[in-house]
């Protein structure tokens, strides 16, 4: 049943999403792909939209995917499911287990989890950038337009960081990429 799947899928995401929104994206991809809810393409679009609309990215993605799979009720269920674990954990930690997180065994577990999340995010990033430029490993093809776009975006990101001495905001990069996309693919 789709409502139950949405609830369980996003509950899993909520339980394991360490490291903020970017840590959650690989998990959400995992869940979405394993249930076959969306194509990789569509999910990437949704990530971009979630990134450019207000609010926590994870919540936005859950609402989005829930709504695309099962309308309004699906959106409500997915959103509540993604939030529920952190809500309960914070209540537990602040109300009862004030020292639980300082426990050395808990810390040892967290020391394993955090670098693993970083590795997962790194692999997902590499896979996506490589996939955009060269397609699947089994059928490599050179997507010239995508390579040009990647070069433009990376150059403007580092250029901005170098001259403005601060990071280019993700929203600006997305707007820039939309304009560059219209230009490069429109010609």
């Amino acid at each position: 049943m789709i409502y139950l799947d949405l609830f369980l899928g996003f509950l899993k995401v909520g339980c394991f999403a360490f490291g903020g929104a970017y840590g959650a994206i690989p998990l959400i991809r995992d869940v979405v792909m394993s249930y076959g809810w969306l194509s990789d393409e569509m999910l990437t679009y949704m990530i971009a939209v979630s990134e450019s609309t207000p609010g926590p990215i994870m919540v936005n993605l859950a609402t989005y995917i829930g709504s695309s799979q099962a309308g309004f009720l699906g959106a409500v269920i997915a959103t509540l499911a993604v939030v529920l674990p952190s809500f309960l954990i914070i209540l537990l930690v602040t109300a009862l287990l004030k020292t639980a997180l300082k426990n050395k065994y808990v810390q040892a577990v967290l020391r394993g989890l955090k670098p693993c999340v970083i590795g997962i995010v790194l692999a997902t990033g590499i896979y996506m950038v490589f996939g955009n430029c060269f397609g699947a490993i089994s059928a490599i093809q050179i997507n010239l337009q995508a390579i040009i776009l990647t070069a433009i975006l990376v150059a403007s990101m580092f250029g901005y960081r170098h001259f403005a001495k601060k990071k280019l905001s993700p929203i600006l990069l997305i707007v820039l990429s939309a304009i560059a996309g219209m230009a490069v693919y429109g010609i």
Partner: protein
Amino acid sequence: MNILLDLFLTFAKIGLFTFGGGYAMISMIENNCVERKQWITHDEMMNVTVIAESTPGPIAINCATFTGYKKAGFVGALAATLGIIVPSFVVICLISMFLDNFLALTIIANAFKGIKIAVGILILDAAFTMIKKMHKKKLPRAIMICSAIVMLCINIFAWNFSSISLMLIAAVVSLTIFVLNGAPDQKGGAKK
């Protein structure tokens, strides 16, 4: 004003006006809850941020739940958390009704092809930022590199293995090594 309504509205405002998720929200929450409303102290705010780093889920939700609970117990936590969620929920519901029609337009489809590339770059960039902040020790590095390699294989060869199982293995490995070392008392671990 009723404290519950106040909590809900304040967090709804924060939810509606912060773009880019987590860390952008922390400064908004600090500004509203610590400086203006004085619901929690600056130290408490710092503590929640550390807790948020060590617990799963959106950081903004963690902060909202904590502040709400401090001010008005369980119901307060509920009001604040709903406050953060409702605005983005409404915005996304509206957008999701139109996205498919939008994508049918060639020019929008082209824009999204560009956006797809930006998303990949953003994720890779986030990974590099996290690596820079990571503990410069052998074990975390080894776990990070092994996880990255396994995750790449999962993606490339479509292995039927979830990233959650990978995280559980990393946790068990780290805990086992810790116990085998005689569970020494050490500080840190939750550092950014």
